[in-house]
C-alpha cells in the first residue's frame, strides 16, 4: 500500500514497545539496519504485512502500556510496520476509552460510577477522590490522574476502581471496595496491589452442589497438576476418545443455549461450523461489559483451566485452526490467569490436538462484546458491528466460519460431556436447561455470583443472597443488565428462566439481579443507564448514534421538570425514540438501549410531574 505519513517520529521507547510485539525492524525504512541486497528488491508490505493488521490492537496496547498515550510518532511507526493507513489507525485508536491520544498521566485511576457502584456510594467515592487527586480528567500532566468509568465488572465488591499504570513494566490493580485513601495509596505504588480474593465473590464456595463454580476459590486453581488430579481434562479426554461427532451430538442434546444474552442454541452453532470447510475459528467472548455482570470474570479468575479446556474441545469438535479469547481490557487478573493457563497447557503439549489459542485484550468498548464488532476489533478495525446476515457461522472472523461462545456457555460444555447431553438437559426447566450463574449486586446482603439450576424465581435468588439490604425495603430489581428490564416488588415470583422472564416482559440477558432499596432515586438510575448507552454507542447507525443522545436529553428534561411542551408530548417522543432504536438499529446495543428505561416508566410513577 502506498501510504503517506506526517513527519512525526517515534521515541526510542515507543519503537521498543512496538518491536516487542512485532519483532525488530529488518529494514532501514523502519529505522533498522540497512541491508543493501534485500532492500533493493523487497519491501515490507503487500501480503506479508496485510496479513498482520490484526496486530494493530496489540501494538496500540503495547505503546499505551509503555508510555501511557499514543503519540503521532508512535502511530506513524505502528502504521509503517503494519502497512495500515494512519487515518484508519487513528480511527481505531480513538474508538477505545482506555487509549489516550493526548499526553496523559502514567497512572490513571478508573473510578466506576455505574449503577451498581452508585448504589454502594460511588458518588461519595468520586467526591473523595476529587478532594485528594483534583478534578477528573485533570488538565495538567502529573503522575496520577483519574477518570469516571462505566461498569468495571466488580459489582459484588462495589464501589470499584481500576488503576492502570504505564512504564517499562505496566501494571493494573483492582481496588474494590475502594475508598479515596486506598485508591490514592494504590496510585502511588510502583507495582500491582494485591487483588481481592475471587473466593469472596462466590458466597456459595465449597458447597457440594456446585458444578460451574466447584473449583472457584480452591487454592490450586492456578496449577495444571492440581487441575488434572481434581478431574480436570476428563472432558477433553472423553472428546478425543469419542470424536467430534459425539461431542456435537451431546451439545445438541443438552439444549444448551448461549449465556451471553442472545440465548441461541449452542449445538446449532457447533454443528454449522463443524460442517463448514476451509479455515475456521473459535472465539471465546470474554468481553463481559454489561453493567452488573461479573460471572465470566469470576470463572476466568477462579477456574481458568476449565475455560481453556472447553475452548480446546470446541476447536477439536469444529475442526478449527485457531482460537481467540477476547478478554475485556478492564480485567487484568482474568487476562493474566487465562494467559498462564494457556501457556501451561501448551507447554504440556496438550494444545497440539486442539489448536493454538491466543488472548486478545479489549480496550474499553462495551460494543466489542457484540460478536461481529468483536471480530472487527480482533481484525484491527473499529469495533463496529456488521450487518447480519451473514451470520458468524458462515462469515465471521477474517470472513471465515467462526464459532463464537460466551465464557459461561463454554464452561457448561465440560459438564455436558461428563454427564451426557441428556442428563444436562434434565436439569433446570424444559426450555431453560442446565445450571446457571447469576450476578447479584446492588442492595443485597451478600453480593456475588450464585449458581442455581434454571427455575429459581427472582425472589429466591435475592433470598439466596441474604435478602434486600440497605433500608431493607425493595423498590425495584433490574434483571438481565442495563439492556434488561426493571421489575417491581410484586413480580418477584417470576422464574428467572428464558420463558419466565419473557412472560413478564424481561429477558435473562447476562443474568443480572440488581435490587434497589427505596432510598434510591430511580430517576437517577435511569439517567445513568441512558448515559451509559450514549457513551457506548459505536456511532455507526443513525437510530442509535442520535437516539441514545436524545433519550438521555429527554430523561434529563423530565427529571429537571422542564419538558418541551406537555409531559404527554415528551413521553410520546420518548416512546418513539425507543421504537426507532429497537426497530432500525444495526445491532443489539441499539435494539435494547431503551428497554430498561421503557420497563421502568411502565411500572413506576416516575417523571409524571411537570416540576419536582
Amino acid at each position, binding site marked *: 500500500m502506498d*501510504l503517506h505519513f506526517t513527519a512525526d517520529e517515534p521515541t526510542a521507547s515507543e519503537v521498543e514497545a512496538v518491536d516487542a510485539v512485532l519483532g525488530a525492524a529488518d529494514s532501514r525504512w523502519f529505522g533498522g539496519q540497512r541491508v543493501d541486497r534485500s532492500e533493493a528488491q523487497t519491501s515490507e508490505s503487500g501480503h506479508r504485512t496485510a496479513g498482520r493488521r490484526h496486530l494493530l490492537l496489540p501494538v496500540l496496547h503495547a505503546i499505551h502500556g509503555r508510555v501511557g498515550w499514543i503519540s503521532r510518532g508512535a502511530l506513524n511507526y505502528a502504521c509503517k510496520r503494519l502497512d495500515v493507513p494512519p487515518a484508519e489507525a487513528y480511527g481505531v485508536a480513538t474508538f477505545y476509552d482506555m487509549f489516550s491520544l493526548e499526553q496523559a498521566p502514567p497512572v490513571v485511576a478508573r473510578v466506576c460510577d455505574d449503577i451498581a457502584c452508585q448504589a454502594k456510594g460511588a458518588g461519595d467515592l468520586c467526591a473523595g477522590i476529587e478532594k485528594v487527586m483534583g478534578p477528573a480528567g485533570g488538565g495538567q500532566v502529573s503522575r496520577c490522574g483519574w477518570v469516571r468509568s462505566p461498569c468495571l465488572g466488580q459489582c459484588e465488591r462495589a464501589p470499584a476502581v481500576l488503576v492502570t499504570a504505564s512504564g517499562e513494566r505496566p501494571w493494573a490493580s483492582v481496588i474494590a471496595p475502594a475508598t479515596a485513601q486506598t485508591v490514592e495509596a494504590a496510585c502511588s505504588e510502583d507495582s500491582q496491589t494485591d487483588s481481592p480474593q475471587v473466593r469472596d465473590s462466590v458466597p456459595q464456595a465449597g458447597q457440594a452442589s456446585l458444578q460451574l463454580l466447584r473449583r472457584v476459590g480452591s487454592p490450586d486453581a492456578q496449577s495444571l497438576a492440581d487441575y488434572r488430579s481434581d478431574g480436570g481434562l476428563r472432558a477433553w479426554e472423553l472428546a478425543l476418545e469419542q470424536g467430534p461427532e459425539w461431542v456435537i451430538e451431546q451439545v445438541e442434546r443438552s439444549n444448551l443455549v448461549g449465556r451471553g444474552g442472545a440465548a441461541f442454541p449452542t449445538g446449532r452453532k457447533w454443528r454449522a461450523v463443524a460442517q463448514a470447510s476451509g479455515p475456521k475459528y473459535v472465539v471465546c467472548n470474554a468481553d463481559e461489559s454489561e453493567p452488573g455482570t461479573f460471572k465470566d470474570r469470576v470463572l476466568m479468575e477462579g477456574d481458568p483451566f476449565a475455560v481453556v479446556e472447553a475452548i480446546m474441545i470446541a476447536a477439536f469438535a469444529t475442526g478449527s485452526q485457531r482460537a481467540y479469547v477476547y478478554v475485556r481490557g478492564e480485567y487484568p487478573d482474568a487476562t493474566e490467569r487465562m494467559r498462564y493457563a494457556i501457556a501451561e497447557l501448551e507447554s504440556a503439549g496438550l494444545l497440539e490436538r486442539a489448536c493454538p489459542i491466543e488472548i486478545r485484550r479489549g480496550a474499553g468498548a462495551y460494543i466489542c462484546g457484540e460478536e461481529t464488532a468483536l471480530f472487527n476489533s480482533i481484525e484491527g478495525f473499529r469495533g463496529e458491528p456488521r450487518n447480519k446476515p451473514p451470520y458468524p457461522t458462515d462469515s465471521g472472523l477474517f470472513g471465515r466460519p467462526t464459532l463464537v461462545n460466551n465464557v459461561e456457555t463454554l464452561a457448561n460444555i465440560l459438564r455436558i460431556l461428563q454427564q451426557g447431553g441428556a442428563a444436562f438437559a434434565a436439569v433446570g426447566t424444559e426450555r431453560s436447561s442446565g445450571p446457571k450463574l447469576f450476578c447479584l449486586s446492588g442492595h443485597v446482603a451478600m453480593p456475588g455470583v450464585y449458581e442455581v439450576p434454571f427455575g429459581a424465581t427472582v425472589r429466591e435468588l435475592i433470598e439466596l443472597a441474604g435478602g434486600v439490604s440497605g433500608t431493607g425495603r425493595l423498590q425495584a430489581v433490574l434483571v438481565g443488565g442495563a439492556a434488561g428490564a426493571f421489575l417491581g416488588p410484586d413480580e418477584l415470583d417470576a422464574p428467572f428462566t428464558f420463558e419466565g422472564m419473557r412472560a413478564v416482559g424481561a429477558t435473562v440477558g447476562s443474568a443480572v439481579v440488581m435490587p434497589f432499596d427505596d432510598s434510591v432515586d430511580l430517576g437517577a438510575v435511569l439517567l445513568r443507564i441512558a448515559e451509559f448507552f450514549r457513551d457506548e*454507542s459505536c456511532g455507526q*447507525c443513525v437510530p442509535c448514534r442520535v437516539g441514545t443522545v436524545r433519550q438521555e436529553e429527554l430523561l434529563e428534561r423530565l427529571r429537571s421538570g422542564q419538558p418541551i411542551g406537555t409531559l404527554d408530548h415528551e413521553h410520546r417522543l420518548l416512546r*418513539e425514540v425507543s*421504537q426507532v432504536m429497537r426497530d*432500525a*438499529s*444495526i445491532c443489539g446495543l441499539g435494539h435494547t438501549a431503551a428497554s430498561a428505561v421503557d420497563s421502568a416508566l411502565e411500572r413506576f410513577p416516575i417523571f409524571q410531574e411537570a416540576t419536582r
Partner: protein
Amino acid sequence: MSDQSLADAPDLTVPVPPGPVPSAPVRERRPEVELSVDGQLVSVPEGSTLLDACRQCEIDTPTLCYVETLTPVNVCRVCVVELEGSRTLVPACSRKAEPGMEIRTDTERVRLSRRMVLEFLASSTDVTQSPELCGYMESYGADPERYGERDAQAESKTQPVKVDNELYVRDYAKCVLCYKCVEACGEDAQNTFAIAVAGRGFDAHIATEFDVSLPESACVYCGNCIGVCPTGALVFKAEHDLRERGEWDASRQESTDTICPYCGVGCTLSVQTQDNQIVKVTSPLDQEVTSGNLCIKGRFGWQFTTGPSETSDDVAADGE
C-alpha cells in the same frame, strides 16, 4: 537450440488450419428470485437487494448512505423495510432478496423509523444543502424542532468550516456520517485512505490522522469524496466561496457534458457553469469509464479556460 527442436517447429509454408473464431462467452442469465413487495409479486435476478426489488416495483425508497457505485454500508437506516418473520426492520439497500420474502414498505412502523431517522439527522446537523433529504423530511412529516433548540450537536458538528487548501472545503456541520467519502477515498475507489471515521458514538466524525490538515495528510485531491457527499459537507472551494458571497444561484447554472482533455482515458466530465465560469465538475455515476470518479486534473484543473491568474499557479503548485 538443438536440432531436435528445429525439426519439431511448424513449417511456416503450411497454412495454419482455421480454428473456431473466438467470441465472448455468453453471459448466462442469473436465476430469478421471487418475492412479494407490498403484496405485489416481483421477480428479481439472484443477488439483487430489496432496494432493487422496491425500485423495480416503482416504490420510492429513500436512501442517504447508499449509492450504486459503493459497497452498501447500511448505516443511515432510512431505507428500512418490514420483513415478514424478522423481529426488527431490515435495510433494503444491503439485504439480499430471498425467495418467498414478504416485504412491506409503507407500514406505520416503517414510516415511523424513517421519519425519526430524518428528524435525528436534521436535529443534529445542518441539512439545508441537501435537497434530497429535505424532500424526504417533507414527505415523511419529520419535525426536528420537537427536540428543542438547546439539544446537543455533536462536537464535530460545531467545528468551523475547514478551509485548508484551494480546491475543496470540508464543512462537517453538514456531515450525516454516511461513510460514503471514506469508502470513496478507500477501497471502493481511490485507495488513498486519507480519511476515516474517528471517535465513537455521537462524537464519531470523519478525520485524517490526528485531524491534520489535508495538505499534511495522504489526500491526493481526486475529489471523489465530493462526488458522493449527499449533504454538501464536502464542496468545491469555488462553490463554497460563491455561497459565502451569496452569489451561488442554481437557476443561472448549466451543465455540459464533455470529455476530459488531459489524458487518453476519456472520462466524461459534467461541467457546471454559472455566468460562463466553471463552478463544479463531476462525472456521471453511470458512466462506464469513471463510475463517477475523476482525478485531480479532470476535477479541478480547469482554470486554463479562464486564462492565467494567481489562482491557477497555486493550484498547479498544490497539485505537484
